[in-house]
């Protein structure tokens, strides 16, 4: 048991270390490279004005944003996979991301997305409607859940596309947002979405115990003293908040929530609390790494980060499915 604990702590330490290294790399890499000692000087005092503005105004916030969005999406994925006992469940696959994206598109057309709070409210509202709809239809069968999510995503994608074609001018700026990117997002006020994400992540930590009971089946969970209904509602609310906030700032980024829980599940070895901890760190690691990749992979400009996550997540998912089978949970 003790050896087990040591290994788990060691794995967590390694991932946190990786996150720290990647965060430094994320601040230093870009069109104008800032060496690590210059970053140190920005915080210790005595750095040049240019480095100061790059680090404080652009890359620092962007790195924080990537960490939070990655952790949020990955945690949402873990919550939904654990609750539904479905290895294929993910906010992106289940249409929750599409719900948030559609709500923001609609809001843009109606001209009500001017302020950050209104965009947040729209995204969370859209995510809430989508998750309730899909969960109502598909809660009993894993495959039906995915099918319902796929159907809803398609419906919303079709409607979004129709809106974009009807109002091309109003939605030109959303061309990039729709692919999911972190570029330029650091300029918008981020306090509200980041606060929502942090609160929801704290909530996710609180539900780990009852969620562990839920993994054993509803009746066992009930016998263990978990209030199944209440836990389910709480988890749905958390998923909605996490996905809505992440989508409001970064656009629809899928696959982080699908991939990270699979990566975290083996080292966590059945413990929901460790799974949640690994998920948060690994989600941040994945999105920061993908964001760095989006800056350096093309010589001519930036790639939207969702394209990079798709190329990281796709092969990894295939590998997982081939190695462990589709239903290893």
């Amino acid at each position: 048991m003790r050896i087990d604990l040591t290994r788990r702590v060691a794995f967590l330490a390694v991932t946190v270390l990786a996150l720290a290294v990647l965060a430094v790399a994320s601040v230093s890499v870009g069109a104008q490279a800032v060496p690590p000692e210059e970053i140190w000087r920005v915080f210790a005092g005595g750095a040049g004005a240019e480095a100061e503005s790059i680090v404080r105004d652009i890359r620092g916030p962007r790195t924080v944003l990537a960490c939070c969005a990655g952790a949020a999406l990955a945690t949402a994925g873990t919550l939904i996979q654990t609750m539904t006992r479905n290895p294929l469940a993910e906010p992106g696959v289940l249409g929750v991301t599409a719900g948030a994206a559609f709500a923001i598109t609609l809001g843009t057309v109606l001209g009500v997305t001017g302020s950050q709070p209104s965009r947040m409210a729209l995204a969370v509202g859209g995510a809430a409607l989508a998750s309730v709809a899909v969960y109502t239809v598909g809660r009993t069968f894993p495959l039906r859940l995915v099918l319902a999510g796929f159907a809803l995503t398609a419906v919303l994608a079709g409607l979004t596309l129709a809106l974009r074609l009807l109002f091309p001018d109003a939605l030109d700026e959303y061309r990039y947002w729709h692919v999911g990117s972190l570029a330029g997002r650091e300029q918008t006020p981020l306090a509200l979405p980041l606060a929502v994400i942090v609160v929801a992540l704290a909530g996710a930590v609180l539900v780990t115990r009852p969620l562990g009971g839920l993994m054993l089946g509803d009746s066992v969970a009930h016998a263990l003293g978990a209030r199944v209904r209440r836990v389910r509602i709480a988890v749905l609310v958390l998923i909605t908040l996490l996905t809505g906030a992440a989508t409001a700032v970064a656009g629809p980024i899928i696959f982080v929530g699908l991939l990270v829980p699979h990566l975290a599940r083996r080292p966590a070895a059945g413990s929901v609390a460790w799974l949640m901890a690994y998920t948060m760190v690994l989600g941040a690691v994945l999105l920061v790494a993908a964001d760095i990749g989006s800056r350096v992979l093309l010589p001519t400009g930036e790639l939207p980060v969702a394209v990079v996550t798709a190329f990281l997540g796709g092969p990894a998912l295939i590998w997982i499915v081939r190695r462990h089978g589709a239903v290893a949970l």
Partner: protein
Amino acid sequence: MSALVVRAGPVSALVERRALVASCVLVAAIAGLALAALCRGDSWDAPGDVLQGLLGRGDSAVIVREWRLPRVTAAIVFGAALGAAGSVFQNLTRNALGSPDVIGLDAGSYTGVLIAITLFGGTAAGLATGALAGGLATAAAVCALALRSGVSGLRLVVVGIAVNAMLTATNSWIVLRADLDVAIAATGWQAGTLNGVEWAGLRFPLIVIGALAVLLAALSQGMRQAALGDDVAAASGLGLGRFRLLAVLAGVGLTAGVTAAAGPIVFVGLVAPQIGRRIAGAAGVPPLPAALTGAALLLAADLIAQTVLSPVQLPVGAVTTVLGGGYLCLLLFKEVERG
């Protein structure tokens, strides 16, 4: 069961009565929708005039035969092709989610088309070759990656979803690098559209789809055997390896032929077989009701796409996703209510 036996010389066929009635109803629906689509234009023509024009008489002959008929033909044939391709893959994977649009064949064909446009310019043959190559490469990749001591349906679907996401990301990246005008045009085409279809552009896809339809008809008996499970199919004399290869070829070819001419019209391949089997009350996912349902669905979707936000013409793919997705949601919801 209430089955009819049809005999014509040495050939005989067993036809379920409900399947027969359902097919007749679907054909009638397609004919009605086609007539409505032929009447619809800037002005609404009387059906009598349109029928006259169809025979080459009257003032509206040119409009009906050269402008509206290609589009209606395309909707029927493409819808049927997508529905049939969907049923082929849903049969092979024994999974409703294993249809071409979910496992990335549409996206792969479209990637091929986009590469063909950027590298070789947009000739019709180049587009068709690109679409076919992209679709086949995607199918080969998905099958190879899912293959591990036998193909499991669910694993294939998950691998397909992963490949689909990568290809979709690639496609949107290619579109993003284009200019705004090109990007808007590509956005319309990205959803699949029948706007501006002409006879000249249709000839090649129609030949390809026709040839593959014959192949599919030849395979339909094997498909019924394969639906019984690998062991029973092999025991009843079906060469599974050859059958699967031919079926995949037919399915990919049908999808690619449509994508080359009209862009990736998703969701018909997923929904039409499922609606078709429910209408026909069939045990498996037979190709004929799927094809007929696909034709009716795409025809109706195209009518809606032209009408609903007139004068803006929506890409038909936007409508198929909304209609098909909505119907699928409804079906799922009803299943939940029944328990």
